[in-house]
C-alpha cells in the first residue's frame, strides 16, 4: 500500500513539473541525458563499447567467429544480438533465465540493427550454404537507471563500429584464421534508437527510471542514416493517439541526428 502512495506522489510531482515544461532532473522534454561512449574497453573482444546514458551504463562486446549459416539463409552471415541486465545493475533483478522484459529488450535492440541492415551480412559468407562468419553482439547492463533500450542500442552500434573482422581462409572445407589480417565490418548505415515515454499528455525523450515508473506508454523508434524509420516498438500498459505517434516519429528523427553524429565519429 505504501508503495502505491509513493507511486501516486511521484506521478503528481512529475505531472506538475511537466505542465511547466520541466522534468525531475531539469531536462527539457525532448532532451536526452548526456551520452558518453568509450570503445575498445574489452581488448580481447573483436569490438566493444562502454556507454553511459545519464546513470544508465552498458558494456557491449562483439565476438566474431566462423559458424554454420541458418537453414535457407546460406547467402548471409549470422548476426546475434543479446542483452542482459546484470544482477549488480539493479536491486530488483535476480539471476536466472531471462524475463520477458529482458527478452523484449534484446529483440528490440536486435531489430534496430537487423532491420536497418546496418551490417551487410552477404559480405560475411565463406562458402555459400556451408560456412559463414557470425557476429555476436552481447550487451550487459551494469547500472540500470532508465531507458535500457537506447543505451544497449548505442553500445551495440558503437561496439560494432569499433570492431575488426578477422580473415578466414577455407582449408579442407573448414575455415582457418589468417593471423594478423583484419578488416572493418561492412557497415552500410547507422541505426539510431530513440525511446520516448508518454506521461499524461506529455511525450518525453529518454525517460529516467523514475519517469518509467509512472509512464503510461513507451515507444522506441529506430531510424537510419537516410532519415527513414526502420524499426518501432510500442510498450507499456496504455496507448498513444495517432497525433502522438506522428510527433514521436518526428522527435525520433530530430533527436536521433545528434546521436548519429556522435556515433559517426567512431567510424
Amino acid at each position, binding site marked *: *500500500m505504501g508503495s*502505491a502512495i509513493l507511486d501516486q506522489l511521484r506521478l503528481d510531482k512529475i505531472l506538475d513539473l511537466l505542465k511547466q515544461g520541466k522534468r525531475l532532473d531539469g531536462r527539457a522534454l525532448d532532451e536526452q541525458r548526456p551520452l558518453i561512449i568509450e570503445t575498445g574497453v574489452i581488448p580481447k573482444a573483436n569490438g566493444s563499447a562502454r556507454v553511459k546514458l545519464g546513470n544508465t551504463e552498458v558494456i557491449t562486446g562483439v565476438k566474431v567467429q566462423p559458424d554454420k549459416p541458418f537453414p535457407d539463409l546460406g547467402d548471409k552471415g549470422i548476426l546475434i544480438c543479446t542483452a542482459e541486465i546484470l544482477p549488480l545493475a539493479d536491486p530488483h533483478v535476480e539471476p536466472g533465465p531471462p524475463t*520477458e*522484459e529482458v*527478452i*523484449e529488450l*534484446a*529483440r528490440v535492440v536486435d*531489430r534496430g540493427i537487423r*532491420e*536497418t*541492415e546496418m551490417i551487410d551480412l552477404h559480405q560475411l559468407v565463406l562458402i555459400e550454404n556451408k560456412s559463414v562468419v557470425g557476429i555476436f553482439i552481447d550487451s550487459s547492463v551494469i547500472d540500470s537507471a532508465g531507458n535500457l533500450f537506447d543505451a544497449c542500442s548505442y553500445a551495440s552500434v558503437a561496439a560494432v563500429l569499433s570492431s575488426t573482422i578477422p580473415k578466414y581462409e577455407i582449408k579442407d572445407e573448414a575455415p582457418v584464421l589468417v593471423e594478423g589480417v583484419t578488416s572493418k565490418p561492412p557497415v552500410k548505415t547507422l541505426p539510431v534508437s530513440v525511446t520516448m515515454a508518454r506521461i499524461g499528455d506529455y511525450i518525453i525523450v529518454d525517460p529516467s527510471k523514475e519517469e518509467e515508473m509512472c509512464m503510461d506508454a513507451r*515507444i522506441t523508434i529506430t531510424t*537510419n542514416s537516410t*532519415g*527513414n*524509420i*526502420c*524499426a*518501432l*516498438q*510500442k*510498450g*507499456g*500498459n*496504455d*496507448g*498513444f*493517439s*495517432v497525433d502522438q*505517434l*506522428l510527433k514521436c*516519429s*518526428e522527435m525520433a*528523427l530530430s533527436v536521433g541526428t545528434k546521436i548519429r553524429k556522435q556515433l559517426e565519429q567512431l567510424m
Partner: protein
Amino acid sequence: MTEDGIRCDGRRVDQLRNISIKAGVLKNADGSAYIEFGKNKILAGVFGPRDVHPKHMANQDTGILRCRYHMSPFSVTERKNPAPSRREIEISKVLKEALQPALILKDFPRTVIDVFVEVLQADGGSRCAALDAAAVALADAGIPMRDLVSACAAGKVADRIVLDVNNEEDQEGQADMPVAIMPNVGKVTLMQLDGILTPEEYKTCLQTAIGGCKTVYEVQRRALVERYFESGEK
C-alpha cells in the same frame, strides 16, 4: 503486384483478407473466440478474474493481466518445437500491453485475468489476428472493458503501402507494421515496425492500418452480437 495494384492473392492494396470470428467456442474457458484471418486459424481462451497462483504474485492494489501467445507444432511449414520461443515470449508481452488499456484492472484487486492464445495455423499477421480473437474472448468472458481492441497490419510491398500483409508478401516485403487500436477511445495500443519507411510512408502506413482495424472491429462486434443476441445457445 500488377500495375493496377492487384496483389498476389487477388486483393486490392486497401483490402483485408477474409475474416471470420466466432465467440464462445470453448466449454471450459470463461470466455473464448476462434478467428480465421486469411489462413490464420487462432483460438483464444480467457479465465478470470480469479485467484493468483503463486500467491506472492498477487497485487493488493490491482488485478493483473497475463497473456500467453503460443504456436502449435503443426501451425507452421517446418514443425515447431512446442517449447515457447523468444519470439513467442515477446509477442505475449506485446499482446498483454495491447489489451491492458481496455481493461479496468483496478476494480479487481488480488486477482488475475489469464488470456491464452493458440495459433493453430499461422499466416502473416498472426499477432494481430490473435489480438482480435483475445479481445472478443475477454468480452465473451463478461469482463468489463472500456472498449474492444482491434488489430491489423499494414506494410510496404513492391514500393506500395498495402493493408494486411500476408505470408508471401511478408517474405518479399519491405516493411510490416502491426497496429492495434481501441476503436472508440481512439488509442493505438499495439504498434511495431520491421522494415524501412520514409516519414511520409510511415504516416500513410499507420493510417492504412488504422483503417483496417476499424473494419476488423465491425467483424468483432458482429461475432459478439451473434453470440449474445442471435443464438439461444449460452
